[in-house]
């Protein structure tokens, strides 16, 4: 997107392209005969810009919830502190591991697209691992809820528990979105029409989920 905020390239009156846009360039990217190696990858901007915009919106939502949490805590003296379910820390590790595996997959596929690798390395495998770890994380979060439940801490028990459930649920929901993205990536990879930008966008989203979770964990750890 950086290229777009400058003055446009000088235009030569001869040989204007009959088709295609100046900056986006995704129109040229329909894979030729489904063979990824023959595709010139201009790393199309829209999806990678779009993902940043989406992440901005998500950050805004969680910022709002954070400020709500701080205001609510200060609003009255009924805030009850409790220790976070220990499983959360395990979940954190799992989520980070998933980011790691996704990164491996991304690089292999990139290399494979560039033609420097051959198909045999099966990048898809790592995607499946990521998917699995993601699901594991969500299950872990659910286990954390069960732990709280066993302590008698429900959604309405106390503002602190309310915010715990709201924040973790909101994050889990977004993680599900990421899992959906992964499934699509895998599907496209098998159909051999995956474009790098799709993968990059999904990866960025997934890594953002890590950072978001890290932030939430810190927040909850401090406030609860």
């Amino acid at each position, binding site marked *: *997107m950086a290229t*777009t*905020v*400058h*003055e*446009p*390239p000088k*235009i030569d*009156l001869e040989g*204007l*392209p*009959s*088709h*295609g*846009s*100046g*900056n*986006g360039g*995704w*129109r040229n*990217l*329909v894979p030729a005969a489904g063979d990824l190696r023959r595709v010139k990858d201009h790393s*199309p*901007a*829209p*999806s990678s*810009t*779009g993902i940043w*915009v*989406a992440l*901005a*919106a*998500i950050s*805004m*939502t969680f*910022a*709002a*919830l954070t*400020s*709500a949490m701080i*205001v*609510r805590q200060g*609003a*009255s*003296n*009924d*805030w009850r502190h409790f220790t976070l379910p220990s499983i959360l820390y395990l979940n954190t590790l799992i989520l980070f591991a998933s980011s790691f595996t996704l990164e491996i997959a991304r690089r292999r596929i990139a290399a494979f697209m560039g033609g420097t690798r051959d198909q045999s390395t099966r990048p898809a495998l790592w995607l499946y691992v990521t998917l699995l770890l993601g699901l594991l994380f969500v299950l872990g979060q659910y286990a954390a809820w069960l732990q709280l439940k066993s302590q008698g801490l429900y*959604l*309405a028990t106390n*503002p602190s528990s*309310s915010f715990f459930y*709201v924040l973790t649920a*909101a994050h889990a929901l977004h993680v599900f979105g990421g899992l959906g993205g992964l499934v*699509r990536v895998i599907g*496209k990879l098998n159909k051999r*029409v995956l*474009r790098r*930008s*799709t993968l990059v*966008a999904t990866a960025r989203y997934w890594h953002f989920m890590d950072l978001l979770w890290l932030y939430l964990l810190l927040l909850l750890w401090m406030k609860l």
Partner: protein
Amino acid sequence: MHEVSAHAAHGAPTSFIRKYIFSLDHKVIGKQYYALALVAVFVGMFLSWLMRLHLGFANYAIPGLHLLSKTGAPGNVMTPEYYLQLMTMHGTIMVFFVLTTAPFAAFGNFFLPIQVGAEDMPFPHFNMMSFWVTFVAFLVLISSFFVGDGPTLAGWTQYAPLSAVGSVAGPGQGLGEILWASSIAIFCVGQLLGSLNFITTTLDMRTKGMSLMRMPLTSWAWFITSLMGLTAFAVLMPACILLILDHVAGTSFFIASNLVISGQLLHHSGGSTLLWQHLFWFFGHPEVYIAIVPGMGIVSHVLITNMRRPLLSHRVIIACMTSIGVLSYMVYGHHMFVSGMNPASSLAFSFPTLIITIPATIIVLIWIGSLYGSKLRINAASLFALGFISMFISGGVSGFFLAQPSIDIMLHATYFVVGHFHLVMAVAAIFGIFAGTYFWFPKMTGHMMNETLGKLHFWLTFVGAYCIFMPFHYLGIAANVRRYQAFTDPYLIPLIPVHKFITVAALATGAAQFIFLYNLVHSRFWGAAAPDNPWEGTSLEWSTATPPPHNNFGDKMPVVYHDPYEYNIEGASSEYVMQTSPEQYTNPHEEK
């Protein structure tokens, strides 16, 4: 992403469903948004008629009203609760489903990609979802008319705890309230998807030569609006979800301890009433500008074309709109001067509020200054654009009062406020929509609208709007409190004649809108065929066919060589130079 390649791959859809209902085409989606706004605006107007009848002529029996609500209007006379329910729905429908959808989502969807020279938005599926999600939100909201004891009566601002404690607080505060909150949460999703598309389109989809500074002011307005929308709606959505939780899950985000509502002690504790107000107004004030900034863009665009000259400065307008967008997040506290917020922060909020009048004033000055020495063409579109300026001034000056906490002590929650925001954001924005409609209708439908009817519509609306909303200010100065269903207090009784006058004016002005509706529908089917460039405009939407083909520009994507508004340029071959014309010359007024 998948949407993109799929869209780029498939040509124009053939089946009726894919073409007109679940269409991926930003132009169809824009029209769908426009249709939704049209339905919504007439519903909202109808509600305002009922309210005005009740206010002007107390206990006036409105024939058939009991059909709308059995308990709300026994014997066709409106009950207090039903008045408040209509008021709440009027506000919600107008602010969310008219002022946000029409100038931003409708026109923006149709013209942003065309004006920047794109084939479509980058994520057509999101775009389609954006509309249908908004549509569902509208249905959910309307459905609350037909459930239990009707829609919520807590006003469009939905202040907690009234909005949070449930049906014990009054009719409609049970299911009706939950429907309201759900509807708005859904609406937020729709607008977030829309903003995502708008921003990405502006940043990534511009055609060759279309630098940011070469985008028409409308595109700029939509871009800035979508940035505001992305931030504002991302805050309102969680707020609505917390509100729903307070309702159904027994949490206490907004409900304080030990509340006793008509004898019943609630089992909530420690919630913060002001928290809702902060969250809501952090969205609510930007929302006001989400409604008006696209109007500014449309008015500039329409005026320039009809003044046959560029504005004195393209960049100043952009700078002003941007600073308004940025400031809009620092001023929201002026809605809460007497809310119990720390009085020091009231002062802190009042200064940015006063400051924000500066960019607004500069925009107006640039408009007026550009009128000087122009070759103004008078038609329905330009009349409404000029009317917008007049309305914007009238509504704007009352902001000087409301921006000051001390004066707000007198005017807060009076009809002065009602008059202020109706003029500056409602009527002005609607004028922007009308200007846009008369200006772009040919391009959108391929038919010209009837100019005579358009001008008639303008005159009635312009005079009528002033007759309705100017007196509101007088009422407010006389301390006439808003959101009252009847004026029984001794000090309000002398003001009732004014209310009668307003009611009559409102009925007449509302009736005039049916001229517009007739014009719209009739022209859509039987209007004269429109040429490609009826107004001799220069921006990209005028360089493509009317109506534009499925991919907007046929087989040849446009390449841009000029600023968007090059009219009457010395040294140019013709009176106006299209952005796409490769003609080379030096523009003496080009901004360095």
